[in-house]
């Protein structure tokens, strides 16, 4: 090996470092631009809605029933319906979701059935929400004869958010270190006692955060409730589980699909209220996570 053989390679290889670095910077700017486009759209969306709907917000708007006259139309029935749906979905989906997560994460044997359940849950989490609506029509509205009622809507939405709660809760349970379980078992606690008294409390902040975000998803959903036929003109608040109902997103959709601009303003007002509720939820989730996490440290 002489220097002569190495030299041609040296001559061929030009590092062009300056160019490559400049390309890298350019690419960094591009990726920053992508993020900025996302954030700008979010800003535009909020600004647009607030500009359109700010002036319709009033106490009357919150406490009036929908009306054919836009200047009198309010969101009372929708707000109450959303509140009921929220409570019902929380009651139905939270215990089921957490129980399923505990089973899959702590008890499930590694077998075919467990694998099927896992694939199935990840598929269900991505099934279009309108398909849940069709399920709701077929099973709850027709077969169980619940009609187009509050409980039919709540059950449909519960099935919709169940996979989200399960996935979030499993992640929270998985984040609890195995040493906690081993310590519990070593103290003579049974498997269930260990899970109940050691693992679950430690995972609770994560589980609650996931559940709150899932509930936020439920109150923003429109399509499945349209499919099960939640009435769009409801000038009363439901008195029982079997009454017809409406929710905020449906009322908003109803107003958007009218031609008059005055109704579009009402829709924007409804959107501001809906976004405010969702913001409250997300804030609550962040607060809970921060607060509960401080108490438990491994």
């Amino acid at each position, binding site marked *: 090996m002489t220097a002569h053989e190495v030299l041609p390679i040296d001559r061929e290889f030009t590092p062009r470092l300056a160019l490559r*670095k400049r390309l890298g910077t350019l690419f960094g700017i591009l990726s920053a631009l992508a993020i900025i486009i996302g*954030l700008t759209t979010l800003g535009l969306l909020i600004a647009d809605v607030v500009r*359109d709907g700010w002036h319709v917000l009033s106490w009357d708007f919150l406490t009036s029933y929908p009306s054919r006259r836009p200047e009198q139309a309010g969101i009372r029935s929708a707000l109450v319906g959303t509140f009921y749906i929220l409570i019902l979905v929380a009651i139905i989906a939270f215990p089921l979701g957490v129980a399923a997560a505990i*089973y899959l994460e702590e008890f499930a044997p590694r077998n075919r059935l467990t694998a099927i*359940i896992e694939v199935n849950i990840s598929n269900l989490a*991505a099934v*279009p929400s309108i*398909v849940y609506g069709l399920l709701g029509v077929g099973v709850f509205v027709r077969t169980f004869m619940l009609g187009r009622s509050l409980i039919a809507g709540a059950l449909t939405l519960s099935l919709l958010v*169940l996979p989200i709660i399960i996935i979030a809760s499993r992640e929270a349970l998985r984040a609890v270190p195995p040493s906690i379980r081993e310590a519990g078992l070593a103290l003579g606690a049974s498997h269930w006692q260990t899970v109940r008294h050691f693992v679950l409390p430690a995972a609770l902040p994560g589980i609650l955060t996931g559940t709150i975000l899932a509930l936020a998803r439920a109150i923003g959903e429109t399509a499945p409730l349209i499919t099960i036929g939640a009435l769009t003109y409801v000038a009363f608040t439901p008195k029982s589980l079997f009454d017809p109902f409406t929710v905020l997103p449906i009322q908003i959709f109803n107003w958007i699909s009218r031609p008059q601009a005055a109704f579009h303003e009402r829709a924007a007002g409804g959107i501001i209220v809906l976004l405010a509720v969702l913001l409250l939820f997300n804030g609550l989730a962040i607060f809970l996570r921060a607060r509960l996490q401080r108490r438990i440290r491994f």
Partner: protein
Amino acid sequence: MTTEPFLAPVTTPAERREWILRLLTGTQRVDRIRRLRESIILSLLFLSALISVATTIGIIYTLSIETFHFFQRVSLIDFLTDTQWTPLFTEKHFGIWPLLTATLLVSAIAMLVALPLGLLAAIGLSEYASPRLASIVKPILEILAGVPTVVYGYFALLFVTPLLKRFIPQLEVFNALSAGLVMGIMILPLVASLSEDAMRAVPQSLREGAYALGATKLEVVWRVVVPSSLSGIVAAFILAISRAIGETMIVAIAMGQVPRLTLNPLVAMETMTAYIVQVSLGDTPHGSLEYQTIFAVGTTLFLITMVLNLLSYRFLQRFREVYE
């Protein structure tokens, strides 16, 4: 739990023996009750997990029963080859293509926005931004994913369409373009978040190895990080397509309800989901042909998204196997 006093006042050996015996048998009984209770709890937990399977069975059962009735009246050949969809008119045609084309067109527009921007945002967050900046930007970006779709519909119809109309005068009030663009922005955080997770899972040593060989940041990103996390990124992309195909409210509000077979994004069209909404808004009697059409359309939708979801799951599993 036993409530027996642990140290009973015992004096004689006989008393002591009796006490120990009572303690042991008592514990046994408590133990038996506890075991029974726990096996009941365990089976309740198992049943809860089975609800997800029951949901899938319920979906397939509901969809297939009505779809079966539908195909007793309409031939599958017509469904797959007819180019018109007019079940609500007097002269009825049942070709899925107009709905399917509209769905694919709007999804394609959304993907043109969401995939490049999502991937770029993920690279920016995971490779370029400082962890501090990323921890601030990421939650804000994820708010986009939490905005209800009906709000995006409002935004597309009453903000984006009028805005685009200034540049494209022939744009109709309802069109696939603005619905697709807005849908793309909505799906961006999903792509960004899942791709970023995949990139974060790439071991730091791979990056450092490449840097040590003289690679620049861009080369590390494109030749090391992206290829190593490719299956995660592909999973994110597939899931994004599935999301776009199943998206309902944006297209129902901003894209119109005219089932026509065209690839022109400037005119009104009707997607599969928008058709289901349209029929559901009217009061269709159970058992009528219109009622059955939404299940036939729903089945098509369910099958397409399920194939995509399972594909995405396979890719995701592969990426997990490599680095965990």
